[in-house]
């Protein structure tokens, strides 16, 4: 197998950061090469250079044996390089076929040849086993299918080197499985794939080789078969990483959150959360497991006062907070790490310092007679940047310039330092590197041990299992079951998350346990 791509001594200097420091990277024909590393280690930068989005400051790129200059994506596309970004670049009102051919439309005279466009896309999706309806509107597709459209878009432009930047961060576990199948098919057809991820399990599951970056430098490249979880984690972080959360038993105290028959409807009147009753006590973590889109987001937004409640009541520390404004709920002792940090959690164009006071900006040390206390704001920022190891440690930089994981740390730092009575963490480690996951998990347990009631919503089963003291499963807007962690198995969670009833599971298990494992 020959090399289709070689990047030699790639260097990229941003105003404050050396994002890539003489990085070597190569890609064999028909291999899946995983690229891993901490947040901000330079993975996206390296691949953006290959795709012509950034200009390198040093080094050379050799594609299929030829040294090349890539100064804009057009040239990368001509070199049969395709890239799928974490944030999709699709035009939602258009159909799948229209999106795929966009920019190289098939014409009949001056008009678009819709028929051929559709048949062309059908042929492509057949060839690569990427099932999709060419006439569906992109807006109606699930995230997993939208990603498929992005991949097809690249293939349509002839890509045989495919870069995927954190493709799994937004996918459900089932969608991840499907994606891996697609990647393997592509590989068998001779496509070479660069796969960026934070999840070591995924590296081990799908890649042939893996390269690790740390603080802009290449640490090493390993054959996947010859490495393991622990070694990779250590290469990424540069020290021993605890892959298991260490925690003592919970000491549940008073009831902090009580939901009684909470129902939430969306703007069209569809029931999203159906008659949910729950309690969370101080000093415990209640995990909500569930496939995304089963009402978890709506439930969290309702508690936070960000969505109207259609029925039922919410009590926080014995106060009825149903219908309160977000600010009032916050002041009653509530902190929230929202699931979508870009949409909810951050004002990306605000500085790190200003983001660290969002929600506290009207409270005491930060404002005095309506005027900002710049000194206090700066001190607060410095303190949190240090405590939470936010990198680069520059309070005045816009949050936009930070890597995803460091952006998440801003949100976590801000919400956790308030020591709220009730802390809701929604997907707290999405897109975050192993070192930061370890850190955030430790912080969650520390909050619990300080007496916070923690409600954890996560699509990561591992996360739910390792942090929770009790687990609730949410399916189709309802809480299916709440059980102490001792009674939970991954298998049982999977069963309940897909809509199985608890009674059925117990019945099944007795008869079907022989087939398992």
């Amino acid at each position: 197998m020959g090399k289709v791509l070689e990047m030699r001594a790639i260097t990229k200097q941003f105003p404050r950061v050396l994002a890539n420091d003489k990085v070597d990277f190569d890609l064999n024909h028909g291999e899946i090469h995983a690229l891993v590393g901490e947040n901000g280690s330079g993975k996206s930068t390296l691949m953006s250079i290959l795709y012509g989005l950034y200009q390198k400051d040093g080094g050379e790129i050799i594609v299929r044996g030829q040294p090349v200059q890539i100064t804009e994506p057009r040239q990368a596309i001509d070199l049969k390089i395709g890239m799928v970004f974490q944030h999709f670049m699709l035009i939602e009102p258009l159909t799948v076929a229209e999106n795929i051919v966009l920019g190289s439309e098939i014409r009949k005279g001056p008009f678009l040849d819709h028929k051929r466009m559709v048949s062309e896309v059908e042929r492509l999706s057949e060839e690569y086993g990427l099932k999709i309806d060419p006439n569906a509107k992109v807006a109606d597709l699930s995230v997993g299918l939208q990603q498929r459209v992005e991949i097809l878009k690249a293939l349509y432009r002839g890509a045989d080197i495919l870069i995927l930047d954190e493709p799994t961060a937004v996918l459900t576990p089932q969608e991840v499985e499907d994606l891996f199948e697609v990647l393997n098919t592509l590989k068998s057809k001779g496509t070479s794939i660069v796969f960026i991820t934070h999840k070591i399990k995924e590296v081990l599951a799908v890649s042939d080789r893996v390269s690790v970056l740390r603080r802009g430098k290449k640490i090493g490249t390993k054959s996947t078969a010859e490495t393991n979880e622990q070694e990779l984690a250590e290469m990424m972080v540069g020290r021993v990483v605890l892959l298991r959360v260490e925690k003592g038993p919970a000491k549940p105290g008073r009831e902090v959150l009580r939901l009684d028959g909470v129902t939430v409807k969306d703007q069209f009147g569809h029931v999203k959360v159906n008659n949910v009753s729950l309690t969370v006590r101080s000093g415990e973590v209640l995990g909500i497991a569930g496939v995304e889109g089963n009402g978890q987001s709506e439930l969290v937004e309702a508690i936070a006062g960000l969505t109207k409640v259609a029925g039922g009541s919410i009590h926080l520390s014995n106060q009825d907070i149903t219908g309160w404004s977000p600010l009032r709920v916050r002041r009653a002792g509530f902190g929230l790490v929202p699931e979508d940090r870009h949409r909810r959690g951050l004002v990306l164009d605000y500085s790190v310092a200003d983001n660290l006071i969002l929600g506290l900006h009207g409270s005491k040390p930060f404002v005095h007679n309506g005027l900002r206390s710049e000194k206090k704001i700066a001190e607060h920022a410095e303190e949190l940047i240090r405590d939470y190891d936010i990198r680069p440690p520059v309070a005045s930089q816009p949050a936009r310039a930070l890597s995803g994981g460091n952006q998440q740390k801003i949100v976590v730092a801000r919400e956790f330092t308030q020591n709220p009575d009730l802390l809701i963490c929604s997907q707290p480690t999405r897109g975050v590197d192993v070192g930061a996951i370890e850190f955030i998990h430790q912080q969650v347990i520390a909050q619990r041990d300080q007496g916070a009631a923690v409600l954890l919503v996560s699509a990561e089963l591992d996360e739910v299992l390792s942090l929770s003291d009790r687990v609730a499963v949410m399916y189709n807007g309802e809480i299916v079951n709440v059980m102490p962690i001792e009674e939970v198995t991954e298998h049982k969670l999977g069963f309940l998350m897909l809509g199985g009833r608890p009674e059925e599971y117990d019945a099944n298990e007795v008869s079907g346990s022989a087939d398992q494992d």
Partner: protein
Amino acid sequence: MRTKIKALPWQELLLPLAAVVLALLIGSVFILYVGENPLTAYGILFKESLGSVRNIATTLQRATPLMFTGMAVAFAFRAGLFNIGAEGQLYIGAFAAAWVGFTFANLPRIIHLPLAIVAGMAGGALWASIAGVLKAKLGVHEVINTIMLNFIALFLTDWLVTGPFHGGSWVPETARISASAALSRIYPPTRLTTAVYLAVVAAAAVYLILWKTKRGYELRAVGLNPSAAEYGGINVARNTIIAMAISGALAGLAGTEQILGLHNRFILRFSSDLGFMGVAVALLGKNHPVGVILAAILFGALQAGSAAMDRLTAVPRELITIIQALIIFFVAAEYLIRRMLRLKEDA
């Protein structure tokens, strides 16, 4: 791109400057076409607008209302609102100021003038708040509702000035304001008044509000990311209304300045699009108070110099309108200029 970060300050300045230079270059093609030398024409333009203290005073006088309307548009824009209603707010503010000016004839100056100014601000603020409420409570887009409110403001003041408050002369105007409500001239015989100081104070106030207060933090957060603002406990609806009100007060000041400093009465449709020019000024000034002041002075200079250019050369004064339009075109076509200047985002 995800990682696009704010350009360096000098680049912020470079862009509007490049737009101005390009506009003048293209303008010179027109000048050549009418058979004049662009250098001569621009020379006159420059001399007549900035060549002497007196000319500078005239330039500043022309610039003053644009400083206010530009600031009005910029302020709303920072809160994510496109206020095209400055024109209407200006008329309501102007009428309110005029009314105070000609109604309370016996007040001492120290009370009368401030009262008229406050009335002008209040009028503009009130009118703009209607737009704010419509947007915040009913979700009517501010572009649509401010345009409609412009028409209403125009026809309302048309009626007021021709009907109940007609001053009795043969022209559609109100009675004269009393001298105690008139702004004082600083450099006679030019008509530059103390309003220009007021504009500088307003610019400083806008800066302080936006960047140094809790309110400004909230307003800008709403403008940049309303979802995150809401999550951070910021009342989006309330801040929308407040932003419109402050913006309207600034537009109202433009009208006030025109009445108390220039016309000394409310005249039917006196404004010649000062409110709409505010959009252009804000755009050129990058929605920053300092930028707005500079942009307003530039537009003021073009207008101040245009009469002489018209008089002394074959170039019609309408060329100035073309140049202003071109400047706006190039500022709006930021991408084009960036490419021409090869400004790399990450360079």
